[in-house]
């Protein structure tokens, strides 16, 4: 009986210590995530300028959103700029396949392609803004070499979004390349050997072995890129501080930020941010469902 008591006091002491160890992250989570989220839900039903107390207005913000052309334009811009995701994934897979060969210099190339990933997005955005300069920019000078007279990229509704997509692909390529490379190196060799024994050529091996084995990474990259892409802000804010020509590059987070901190429409901005949060959540949930089906189809 004494041993039982001793054990339980020991356990209690262990639990107390464990609780102390996890306390900080849990408190941080409650204060900086749960509470703001709950407050967002409340504030989205109010008219609130951030100075005087919020006034409850029911669904007015959401109704206003439905007929706000800028909201829809910002949503469309954000969605459009995600074209870069599949492009970037294909390119990075090709890169990873190239770097997975046994040859010299792969470490060097891996480093070079990864440099944009670790670089500050603010500095990168400034850099690319200069590169997209209509008269003296790097891009147009390169185009001039092949006889194309390039546009003033960031001042033109037709080219501002492609310009930002190009930059995002350039910036993110190294990251997905690295994850693909890691996944490629962990594909068990015997799968290829078995496929080769069955007479599968290089392409068939790629389609039936490599691609399925890469599916978890692809899934991870798609989910995280959509989450990241839906929150694109810094590039927009630095490269096109006014939201681009005719609102052509204003992203949803840029519009939320603008409404909240320049127009002090905190209630309206919060309701838009809540919609963004719900969309991100829904996309993630749908993709997890799809992924589960994929997993079954592999087995």
């Amino acid at each position, binding site marked *: 009986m004494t041993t039982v008591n001793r054990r339980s006091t020991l*356990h209690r002491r262990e*639990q107390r*210590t*464990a609780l102390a*160890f*996890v306390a*900080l*992250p*849990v408190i*941080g*989570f409650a*204060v*900086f995530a749960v509470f*703001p*989220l709950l*407050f*967002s839900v409340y*504030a989205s039903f109010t008219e609130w300028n*951030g100075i005087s107390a919020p006034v409850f207005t029911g669904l007015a913000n959401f109704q206003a959103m439905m007929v706000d052309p800028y909201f829809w334009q910002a949503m469309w811009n954000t969605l459009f700029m995600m074209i870069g995701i599949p492009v970037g994934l294909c390119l990075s897979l090709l890169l990873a396949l*190239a*770097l997975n*060969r046994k*040859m010299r210099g792969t470490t060097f190339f*891996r480093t*070079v392609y990864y*440099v944009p990933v*670790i*670089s*500050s997005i*603010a500095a990168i955005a*400034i*850099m*690319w*803004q*200069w*590169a997209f300069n209509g*008269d*003296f920019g790097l891009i147009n000078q390169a185009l001039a070499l092949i006889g194309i007279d390039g546009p003033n990229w960031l001042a033109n509704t037709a080219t501002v979004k492609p310009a930002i997509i190009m930059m995002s692909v*350039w910036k993110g390529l190294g990251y997905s390349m*690295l*994850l693909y*490379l*890691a*996944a490629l*190196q*962990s594909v068990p060799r*015997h799968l290829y*050997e078995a496929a080769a024994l069955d007479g599968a050529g290089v392409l068939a091996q790629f389609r039936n072995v490599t691609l399925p084995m890469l599916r978890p*990474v692809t899934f*991870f990259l798609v989910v995280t890129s959509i989450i990241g892409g839906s*929150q694109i802000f810094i590039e927009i804010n630095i490269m096109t501080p006014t939201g681009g020509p005719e609102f052509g590059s204003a992203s949803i987070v840029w519009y*939320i*930020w603008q409404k*909240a*901190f320049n127009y002090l429409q*905190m209630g309206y901005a919060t309701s838009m941010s*809540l919609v*963004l*949060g719900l969309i*991100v959540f829904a996309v993630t949930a749908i993709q997890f469902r799809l992924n589960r089906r994929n997993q079954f189809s592999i087995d």
Partner: protein
Amino acid sequence: MSISPTTSAPPNASTGPAERSLPRLPDRRRASERSGRDKRRRTGNIVVAVLLSAGAFIMLAPLAWTFSTSLKTHEAVFALPPQWIPDPAVWENYIRVWSAGPLWSGIKNSLIVACSVTVVGTVASSLAAFAFAKMRLPAKNVIFLALLTGMMIPFPTMMIPQFMMFASIGWVDTLWPLIVPGLFGNIVMIFFLKQYLDSVPDSIIEAAKLDGASFLQIFAKLIFPIIKPAMAAQFILWFMAVWNDYLAPILYLNSPENQTLQLVIASFNATYATQTDYPLIMAASFIALLPVLLVFVIFQRQIIESVALTGAKG
């Protein structure tokens, strides 16, 4: 999942058990076949290397262009055809830039934020990871899952209430709103270190407990040495993330002397673009890039290993 971060696989990796069971061909035929395959592989390598080099040029060109522009005179910036190697090279731009804006205080502020967040936050995260992985705590999996789910809430959804929270205690235009949330730890780091610790056998911890060691002692003597490499890598990644952060600083910081480096260069960009002083802007941007570039070059291996592991596990 075992990942070898170095791309060169062991030389005889292809001699797996499956290959050994293949019917053996006469030696000469086998050798000639292999040399043919080698030749094809070598040509393939050359083609791939050329393509990779072209890609590497595209990746580095904007950076090189930034550096080149930063050394130009006002006039040379607008020279046609463009000069890749500026003549004359105006190194004075790199002196001029320090007095053109609060670059020093930007660096100082960024260092204060990044150092305090990552040092305290890493301690908090690793203790939590230890508890989640190795200690008895009722409902710890539920708590851990809740923390992970919380990561899915996008920052823009929480930024307005967070801003109002910090505004109500008078912390706007101070570094506190950038520092304080990070002190509570980083869930990505907790997740990563917990995964790392899950593979450590419980028995060594049980043994230490029987010897009467306290949990802090166990952490310091047993756990810390084990997770040190993982911690270092996560620390660097986190440091770079805080250093490069822009959205939170732009929300909270107004006065130039309180701004972090990223904000300082962004306002350089806004101010000097109207004066078309591009060399100055590019010099400032390049200075903002340098610290992370240096850290990356030094810790390249650890960073790449850590990213590869985090992503593959996620």
